[in-house]
């Protein structure tokens, strides 16, 4: 009974988070096109609904009803599996993201943390672990399509994702050193009390370099412009999902956006204080609305996440695609040394000036 109830609550939480994420993805698909359009003095989608706001639904319907083509000679099993493998890890990662303040509420006689599905003590490693699985979807999708473009895209992507994942991991280490925990909840809590405590600028050693490395690497890891080599339209038609259509294509698409959201959430939690407001406490608290103070925190979190998401679009609108060797060289010869140096300096600083 107890277990069943707990399970039910967890499932409800999961459903809620998934709902939010899916909703965000929907919003993002539209937002991206709109923002890109505006930056390029265009309008973006305007037809479906007023000012095109219903465009995501139309797209979704279209993809849902589109014929699902499996190319001749493709490996059917893997071809079907790959999109799922791409999507699931992206969604699983949200389990440890704290969307709001650490608090517990009584629900059916159980302690429930409403803003995090599971506060496990290796949260950040968990995210890294599942982020690394995302590569399988891409590489298998590329391989199973029985198409040269897809294969090349898949291979490129695998190399790129692994290379940049390393930098992501190393960039995070500095934060872990400062916070002394792998749990995202604890890391976020460690940054409470004003923006000067955010790890991006926190003493003893501001993680600004790590932040930059993290952002750049996460852009690369999510295969976004200017690192969208795996799906470079002009070179590889569309990379690993050239041959995909319909819902399978949609899965890849959702996975990419979910990944964007995930890395944005992590970036917000690690470097920008998560749900903490840039000032001590919350305004709602000051004016005596402690009961709904969490709303302010959640809004702050959402704001930070959306800032990062906006950054993705912004970069896409601005930068041209890198050449592949440049991409790799940049990852290994620029990002990696910076991340390593950051770790060394942070470690020294943390040793002499423990927080």
């Amino acid at each position, binding site marked *: 009974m107890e277990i069943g109830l707990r399970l039910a609550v967890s499932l409800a939480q999961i459903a809620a988070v998934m709902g939010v994420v899916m909703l965000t993805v929907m919003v993002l698909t539209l937002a991206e096109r709109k923002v890109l*359009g*505006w*930056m*390029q*003095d265009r309008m973006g989608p305007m037809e479906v609904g007023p000012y095109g706001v219903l465009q995501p639904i139309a797209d979704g319907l279209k993809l849902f009803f589109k014929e699902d083509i499996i190319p001749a000679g493709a490996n059917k099993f893997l071809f079907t599996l790959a999109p799922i493998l791409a999507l699931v890890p992206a969604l699983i990662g949200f389990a440890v993201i704290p969307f709001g303040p650490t608090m517990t509420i009584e629900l059916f006689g159980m302690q429930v943390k409403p803003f995090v599905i599971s506060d496990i003590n290796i949260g950040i490693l968990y995210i890294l672990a599942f982020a690394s699985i995302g590569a399988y979807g891409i590489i298998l999708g590329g391989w199973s399509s029985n198409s040269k473009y897809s294969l090349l895209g898949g291979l490129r992507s695998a190399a790129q994702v692994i290379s940049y994942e390393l930098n992501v991991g190393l960039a995070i280490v500095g934060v872990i050193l400062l916070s002394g925990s792998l749990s995202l909840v604890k890391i976020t809590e460690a940054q409470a009390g004003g923006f000067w405590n955010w790890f991006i600028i926190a003493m003893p050693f501001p993680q600004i370099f790590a932040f930059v490395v993290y952002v750049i690497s996460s852009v690369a890891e999510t295969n976004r412009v200017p690192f969208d080599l795996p799906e470079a339209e002009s070179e590889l038609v569309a990379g690993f999902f050239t041959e995909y259509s319909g819902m399978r294509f949609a899965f890849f698409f959702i996975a990419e956006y979910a990944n964007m959201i995930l890395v944005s959430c992590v970036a917000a939690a690690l470097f920008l204080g998560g749900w903490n407001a840039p000032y001590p406490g919350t305004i709602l608290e000051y004016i005596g609305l402690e009961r709904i103070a969490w709303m302010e925190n959640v809004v702050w979190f959402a704001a930070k996440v959306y800032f990062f998401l906006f950054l993705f679009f*912004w*970069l896409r*609108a601005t*930068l041209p695609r890198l050449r592949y060797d440049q991409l790799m060289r940049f990852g290994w010869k620029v990002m990696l040394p910076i991340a390593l140096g950051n770790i060394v300096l942070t470690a020294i600083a943390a040793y002499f000036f423990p927080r």
Partner: protein
Amino acid sequence: MNVATTAQPKRKPSLGDWLKTLTFYELLVGMKATLTHLLNYKPITLQYPHEKRLLPDNYRGMLALLRYDDGTEKCVGCDLCEAACPSRVIRVVSGEVPGEPTKRYSKEYYMDMTRCLFCGLCVDACPVDALGMTREFEWAVYDKRQLHLNKQQLLAIGDRAYPVREKRLELQHPNVAFFNVTFKHLPQKEN
């Protein structure tokens, strides 16, 4: 930027260059540019089906066969347009008007508009001004065979696009029409 500096293959990077690299200066410049556009959002998009651009005066659109004001076709079936067309759009089958041995007309007249490039050479070539270019451009069809136009269709376009027709010269003998039209500076027959 003078030529001398650009000709130099590699300049030793100065401190400023390093600083620029380290702070992603160029990148930020680019991003500022895009952000500026976002903030000063002035779309140049035309919502086409809803609003349309003004066409220029000499716009060359769909071709049409014309008639005189009395409703007779201008075309005399001379095949000159067919000869002039670089894309072989036009096919003309000419014949004599029954009972009038010297008078010719186009028995059939076809235009394959999928091939037409709207150069206007046929219009220039026509001795009797039987061809004209309209300002129609929305000719999307579901079946491209629909773009294979026959004489009736072309005449219909002409009727639609040229409501005002040229007056037929009554005094003109059909046999000298050629001269009348082409050499307008010559003394015309009296009306």
